[in-house]
Each structure stands twice: as structure tokens, then as C-alpha cells.
């Protein structure tokens, strides 16, 4: 059980292994695309883990990367089509980054490190947990970026108008990608200062 909960904090794919940072910076300017992105990665990661684990004994080791890529890209295309069909606006905002889930190191890493050597159900859980670990970081970063950068959450204005009248301004830097990097860095800092093993 413990190893499945690892990705949430102690072994977090973004904060500890620093994987998937690129997309974490790109899609977190607002909460909505970040949540959609997190869900997509969760789905792709868990299902890909499950499928690869099912056929792990029949994949010739020499071409396993190609087989993995095939499975992942099929899933990503499916997710992309579903997003375009049902949440077209968000799909527009995410643009190329849904397609780029194929190259997300978290997914390939979990396939290589876990799915190839474990049975289907544990692999599914592992993929799901890693997806959640990634998604948590995305949501936290996107929460602060949207709140401070646009004064909204999920596109609803939360900062009252009276604040703006009193001179409050939205922080434009939060919208820019560098601030996402600084926020992710800040999260890593908080995590590391609490953990005694990293020293």
C-alpha cells in the first residue's frame, strides 16, 4: 500500500523526480485547463500501465519502447479526440500539450519502471497514483496562479470588486511562465525543508 501512496508526496513525479515540469509550467495559468490536463494524464498513465502490464510477457524486449509508444500515443489520441468533442474550449487552450503527453517522462518512466515487471492491477493503481501526484502539483500551482494572476478561480471572479476599487491589482507576473517555475521551485523548497532525508 505504501508504495502506491509514494507518488503523492515522498516520491512525487514533479516535485521529487522533477519529471513532466514542461507541461506543468505551460498549462497552469488557469485552474480549468490544469484540472483537465491532470485528468488526461491520470487516464493515460493508468490505462497505459494496465495495457503494457497485460502484454508484458509477449513484448520482445528489444522493441518494447516502440510498443509502449504505440500504446501511449493511441491513448493520447483518444483523449485528445474526447476533449475536442466535449470540452472544445479547454482543448483549444491546452493546444499542443495534450499531444505532448506522449513524451511525458512520467508515463514512459512508469511503464519502464513498474508496468513491465508487475501484474496488471498493481500497475493500474501505480499509474493512477502517479497521475494524481502530477495532478496535485498542477492544481496547487494553477490555484495560486489563477487566484493571484487573474483574480478568478475556475473563471469565476473571487477577488471582490471593492478590492480593485481600493487599489488592488492582479499580479501580471503570475500569468507568465517564469512564475510557474518559481512556484514549483517554492513547493520543492517547502517539501525538502520538511524532509530530513534530503541533505
Amino acid at each position, binding site marked *: 500500500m505504501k508504495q502506491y501512496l509514494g507518488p503523492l508526496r515522498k516520491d512525487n513525479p514533479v516535485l521529487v523526480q522533477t519529471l513532466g515540469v514542461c507541461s506543468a509550467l505551460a498549462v497552469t495559468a488557469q485552474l480549468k485547463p490544469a484540472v483537465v490536463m491532470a485528468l488526461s494524464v491520470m487516464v493515460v498513465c493508468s490505462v497505459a500501465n494496465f495495457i503494457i502490464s497485460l502484454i508484458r510477457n509477449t513484448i520482445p524486449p528489444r522493441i518494447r519502447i516502440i510498443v509502449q509508444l504505440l500504446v501511449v500515443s493511441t491513448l493520447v489520441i483518444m483523449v485528445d479526440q474526447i476533449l475536442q468533442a466535449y470540452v472544445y474550449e479547454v482543448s483549444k487552450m491546452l493546444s499542443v500539450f495534450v499531444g505532448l503527453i506522449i513524451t511525458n517522462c512520467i508515463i514512459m518512466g512508469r511503464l519502464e519502471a513498474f508496468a513491465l515487471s508487475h501484474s496488471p492491477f498493481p500497475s493500474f493503481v501505480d499509474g493512477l497514483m502517479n497521475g494524481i501526484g502530477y495532478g496535485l502539483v498542477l492544481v496547487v500551482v494553477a490555484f495560486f496562479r489563477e487566484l493571484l494572476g487573474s483574480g478568478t478561480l475556475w473563471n469565476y471572479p473571487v477577488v471582490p470588486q471593492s478590492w480593485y476599487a481600493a*487599489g*488592488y*491589482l492582479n*499580479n*501580471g*507576473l503570475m500569468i*507568465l511562465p517564469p512564475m510557474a517555475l518559481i512556484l514549483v521551485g517554492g513547493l520543492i523548497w517547502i517539501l525538502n525543508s520538511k524532509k530530513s532525508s534530503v541533505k
Partner: protein
Amino acid sequence: MSTLSKWSEKIGRSFEKGRPLHCLHSLFDAVDTFLLTPSEVTKEGSHIRDAVDMKRIMITVMIALMPALLFGMWNLGYQHFLSTGVDAGFWGCFWYGFLKWLPLVIVTYISGLSIEVAFAQWRGHQVEEGFFVTGFIIPLIMPPDVPLWIVAVATAFSVVFAKEVFGGTGYNFLNPALVARAFVFFAYPSVISGDSVWIAESADAVSGATPLALVMNGNMAQMPSFLDMFVGTIPGCIGETSKIAILLGAAVLLFTQVASWRIMLSVLVGGFVTGSLFHTAGVCPVNGWQHLLMGGFLFGAVFMATDPVTATHTQSGKFIYGLLIGILAIVIRVINKGYPEGMMLAILLMNIFAPLIDYCVVKVKVKKRKLNISKHRIKL
């Protein structure tokens, strides 16, 4: 003086470990060493003794900033009363500027020092002196009308993310004062750029644009005379307007050898040459030496680029560093209309490259010497 030291000794005991006030010991330590010489001395080994320690260097920089500050205060009032059409006299102008400056500096110090003390306490360090100058410079390079909460947020951001993250004073590779300004510049662009923010009373009466903004808008006819720009009776940040005052400060810094003449000179040369080139090519109506007088160029060259922590350390590295700052500042000014003040970005960029320049200079020197040695051997 002796009563003060006795009092400090008496008070100091309650800050020792295990005592109730231990949680504030770094604050006490900072005040104590600020007022008095520390009583602890090194017990063994030989050390160079010198009256100049970090506190004295910081004080020297603050003294050097004084002319620019005093003039800036007067000018703030002067510009204000010029736009409202009231004749307030010398002291009226000065008092107005002082009242504008005071809240800025108080907010900066409260915001920055509380974070510094908190970090020092958390890490068990002493409170470092570095923030005294940083906190002094920040009000000088902010627009006088900037909302105070923005100053507080920017200061907090720069202290945490430009300094404390990397280990505090002396470990920062970016100039904290410039980071604070860059933060405001990118996060709240409406308060720092534009035509009307530089004079305190922008809403009513005549609003004044800085010379840089005038050039950017192609409005050469309204340009102040270059004598005005040299003396400093133009709208602008508190610290940057008077070139005479800045040169006075530069003289203090150079005389006491606190700042490097190599950096100052090469920044000016780089800026002048690039400015002249652009002028000759017909890209920019402003010629080389006029560029040096506009905006924060001189202030940056004297007080910001020479920051010993973030500049290069090798002697020839300082020339390269300064030249590149001067060149980049003018290039950003002329080419990128979105950023009329290139000095801040140029210095920050070169701060990042400073360690690389040092590394290359050392490598080149090492190679040269190796070559010399091998030649020498062949002769033998």
C-alpha cells in the same frame, strides 16, 4: 558610550540560549553590532585586521547615495509644484518629496527586514547587513507614486527569491534591488511604465513623461534640454534624475575603492559606443552621450552594476561585464520599444552571466600561462 555598552551587556544576557528572549536573539545581535563593536574576537590564528568590514562598506554606499537621494526629494516636490503651478519655495519642495519618500523607505525596511530576521532566526545565522543598502536603493528606483503594498510585496519577493533561497547575503547572484524593480515591472506594469506615473500628482494638472518615454513615442520636440537632464530637474525615479548627484556618489565610491572603476568606466564606454553607432546608423535620434544622461543609465552604472556580490570578480572580467551591460542596455532601449528602460534588464542578464565570464577569464589565463611555460622549456 560606556552606559550604552553596559546596558547592551545587561540586556544581552536575556537573549542567550535557554533564556526567554532567545527567540529574538538575531534581532538583538543585529542592533548590538550595529551600535557597538562586537566583544568576541578570534582566539587563534592570524587574521588581517581592518577597520573596513561589511557594515562600513554598506555605510559608505549609503553615504554615496545621499546626494542623489536629497536631490531626488527636492526634485519630486519641484516637479509636483511645477505641474500644479504653485510656488512652494525650496523647503516646500523638499518637504513634499521627503513625505513621499518616507513611507516608501519605511515599508521597504519593514517588509524586507522582517523576512531577513525570520530567516536568520530559522537558520540560526546573524542578521546580515546586505539589506540596509538594498532597502535604501529600492525607494530610489521605484516610481514615487507606486502603491505601498506593491513595494512591500516586491521587496518580500526579492528578499526571498533573489537572496534567501540561495543562502542570504553574499550568495545571491542577482541584485535584490533590481529584482524588486523587475518584479514590479512585470507583475504590475501599469504602475511603473506609461507616460503619467512619474509625477506624484498624475491625475490632475500636467503629467510629465520621462525623456525616455518621449523618445520612444517619437516626441523629440518636448525633450528637456540636456543641461536639465544633467542637473536633474526632470521627471523620473527619485534616485536617477540628477547626474551631478550620482557623479558625486561615484566619486565617493571610487575614492573609498568600494566600487570598481573598471565596471563603471566600461559600462559608460559600452553605452556610449553603442548609442553612437545607432545614432550614426540613423536608427535612433538620440546620440551616444545623450543616452548616458537619460533614464537610469548612470544610476545603474554607478550603484547597481558595481554591486560586488553580483558582478564579476576577475579584473579583465569586469571590463567584459561592464561593456556588455552598456551595450545591452542601449540595444534593449533602442530595439525593443516595449522596454524603454533597458538598464535594469541588462544588469540582471549580465548578473546571470557574471560567473561564466569569471570562469572563462580564469580558463584563458591558465591556458596562456601553460603556453608560456612550455615555450620557456623549449628555449632551455
